[in-house]
């Protein structure tokens, strides 16, 4: 990386690595504060950058690139389901084994390599330091490492497409023993690389999560109390904690699974004394909190955007925080609802069913609070707002259908059908893609200094919204008709023949959904170069990222930030204008003591 002078990054506390470089640090260099690197050079600025904003954009690029692969996989799956064994334009015929591999990779890529880098990696990295008023992440070089670790994981996963016998085909859940022995699928190195790639991804987000937590807890600007954190920061924090606490057993499990495959141990192989059900428990002990790991940040984005475009404070800030903390706690005691008919002890089902259905309570808090925020507002339907409320509208479907599946008695019938597929797409798509796109349209001006085109943005939204619903509403019906998921050719069952046309509708809508992303791509690149200049605060928003330049300089804030109030002070009748930035000091001369007291009371207690 050349003999560049060590930036302030190297001088900050960092665990494990980098001890020798610090050897050159003198105490005078250790002070915190923006010490701009003079000429960092191409590699240090854009590739191995330690600036959280560059890293955030790198995550964004990686996730959108992986989304292309995941989307292509969706295209192949849908085509095969609608018009089985026909020639898929751009690919060829899909074989049964290939089909299984494609669904496996679609799930793996979308969850681990799109959703997580998108809502956690990109938005978390870009926004947490800006929103809490820090000049960078707590451990910038660890941050760089976590991105490049993820990039390595993505490379390994993509490499698995090209090994002999093809990529993993045991489903994204990799249920043992199908995944534990090569003979069952015929896949050899593909599955091994899958395990390695996912394990690397876990390591990457562990590093990232620790960075998020430390940054948001320790590097907050003066006055930025926990109860003044923007909701997105809260959600990223909860997501990081959930990930950190849930992934350990699955890391252990993936070591064991890998050994089963390559060394021939029998942890999950019944005839060697192992137990396949244990893998499912380990997987879902992680898998369910993981849903909230990728889901909550999307909610956070919506909660940032809805107040701004309603010009109203977020309704019930503390209630939401407590609600999402409760959702986080509950997410650790619901995992077995994925396994009601797996052959686990049936007496476990009812307790897990109760906790699962109870989780609708905290989510109801969040949804109702967002609705209540809209009430009485002055709503402006910009593109980010459209994506936010559109995401909310679709999430409601995902939420209520969760009740069907959480009820053990009904899950006996619906488990493993397209009802499940439609349900989790209805929860994850609103939170990851609707939330993510909302965030992208909203923070694009901050990231690139230019506005995105509103017309193209609205075209993108309506295409996405309408097509998305047309894909998955029919799949609910197919699920009710008893259509099992992961079936290569539906016509092999007579009872599915009436449902075939539902799949045709879904596939045509999928084509529309994919085509609907073209305006976004055009808009993204056009606006980056030719968009209208954004200025510091185009949306008149309160949170700290809007009080610095767009894009923010290295070190984020040219002068130290102080925080005086809550993040969502819109439409306050006491204020001269309808917004009050978090860092805007209270009016200088407090004319009457009472008035000053009132102001302090209004801002100091939340």
């Amino acid at each position, binding site marked *: 990386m050349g003999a560049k002078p060590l930036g302030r990054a190297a001088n900050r506390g960092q665990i494990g690595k980098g001890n020798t470089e610090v050897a050159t640090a003198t105490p005078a260099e250790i002070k915190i504060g923006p010490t701009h690197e003079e000429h960092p050079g191409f590699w240090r600025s854009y590739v191995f950058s330690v600036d959280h904003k560059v890293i955030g954009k790198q995550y964004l690029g990686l996730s959108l690139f992986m989304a292309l692969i995941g989307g292509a996989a969706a295209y192949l799956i849908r085509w095969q389901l609608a018009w089985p064994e026909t020639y898929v334009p751009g690919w060829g015929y899909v074989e049964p084994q290939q089909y299984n591999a494609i669904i496996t990779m679609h799930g793996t890529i979308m969850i681990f390599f799109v959703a997580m880098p998108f809502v956690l990696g990109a938005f978390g990295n870009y926004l947490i330091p800006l929103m809490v008023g820090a000049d960078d992440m707590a451990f910038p070089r660890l941050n760089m490492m976590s991105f490049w670790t993820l990039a390595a994981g993505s490379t390994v996963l993509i490499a698995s497409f090209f090994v002999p016998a093809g990529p993993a085909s045991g489903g994204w859940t990799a249920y043992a023993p199908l995944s534990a022995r090569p003979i069952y699928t015929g896949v050899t190195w593909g599955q091994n690389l899958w395990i390695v790639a996912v394990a690397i991804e876990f390591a990457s987000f562990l590093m990232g999560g620790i960075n998020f937590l430390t940054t948001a807890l320790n590097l907050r600007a003066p006055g930025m109390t926990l109860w003044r954190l923007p909701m997105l920061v809260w959600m990223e924090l909860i997501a990081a904690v959930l990930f950190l*606490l849930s992934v*350990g*057993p699955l890391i252990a499990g993936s070591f064991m699974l890998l050994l089963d495959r390559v060394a021939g141990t029998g942890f999950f192989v019944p005839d060697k004394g192992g137990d396949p059900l244990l893998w499912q*428990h380990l997987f879902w*002990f992680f898998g369910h909190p993981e849903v909230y790991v990728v889901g909550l940040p999307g909610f956070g984005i919506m909660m940032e955007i809805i107040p701004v475009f309603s010009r109203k404070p977020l309704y019930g800030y503390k209630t939401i925080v407590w609600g999402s903390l409760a959702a986080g706690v509950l997410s*650790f005691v619901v995992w077995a609802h994925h396994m009601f008919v797996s052959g686990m002890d049936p007496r*476990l089902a009812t307790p897990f069913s109760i906790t699962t259905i109870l989780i609708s309570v905290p989510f109801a808090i969040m949804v109702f609070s967002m609705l209540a925020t809209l009430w009485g507002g002055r709503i402006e339907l910009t593109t980010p707002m459209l994506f936010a409320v559109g995401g909310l509208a679709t999430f409601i479907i995902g939420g209520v259908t969760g009740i069907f599946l959480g009820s053990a008695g009904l899950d006996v019938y619906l488990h493993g059908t397209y009802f499940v597929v439609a349900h989790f797409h209805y929860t994850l798509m609103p939170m990851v893609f609707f939330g993510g796109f909302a965030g992208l349209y909203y923070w694009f001006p901050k990231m690139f200094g230019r506005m995105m085109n509103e017309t193209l943005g609205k075209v993108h939204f309506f295409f996405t919204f309408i097509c998305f619903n047309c894909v998955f509403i029919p799949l609910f019906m197919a699920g009710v008709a008893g259509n099992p998921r992961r079936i290569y050719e539906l016509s092999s069952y007579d009872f599915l023949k009436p449902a075939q046309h539902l799949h045709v509708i879904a596939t045509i809508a999928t084509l529309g959904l994919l085509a609907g992303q073209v305006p976004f791509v055009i808009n993204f690149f056009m606006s980056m170069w030719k968009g209208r200049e954004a200025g510091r605060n185009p949306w008149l928003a309160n949170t700290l990222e809007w009080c610095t330049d767009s894009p923010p300089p290295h070190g984020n804030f040219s002068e130290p930030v102080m925080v005086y109030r809550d993040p969502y002070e819109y439409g306050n009748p006491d204020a001269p204008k309808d917004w009050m930035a978090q860092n805007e000091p209270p009016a200088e001369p407090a004319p009457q003591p009472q008035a000053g007291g009132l102001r302090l009371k209004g801002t100091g207690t939340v």
Partner: protein
Amino acid sequence: METLLESAATRAHYIAIWRWLVFFVFAALAITLLPLPKIVSLALVFGIALIKAAMVMRDYMHLKSEKLIIHAIALIPILLFIGLMLTLIPDIALHR
């Protein structure tokens, strides 16, 4: 920050803790050699392991002077995996 006298006491305290740890190792070994019922010997051995771990964490990892939040960070995962273990007993340990 610390006076010389205090730090000498700290050092002696670290060594005293180490003596206890060594003693507990031998105690655990002695228990396994005694003709105790299996369940009693298991309880004693793991009780000793818990005490040893608690001593290391409290004194060597400075938990005794840490803030509540650090205690929570250390304790929550322990409770979580023990909860996981207990929940899985009917399914994995007793299913036959």
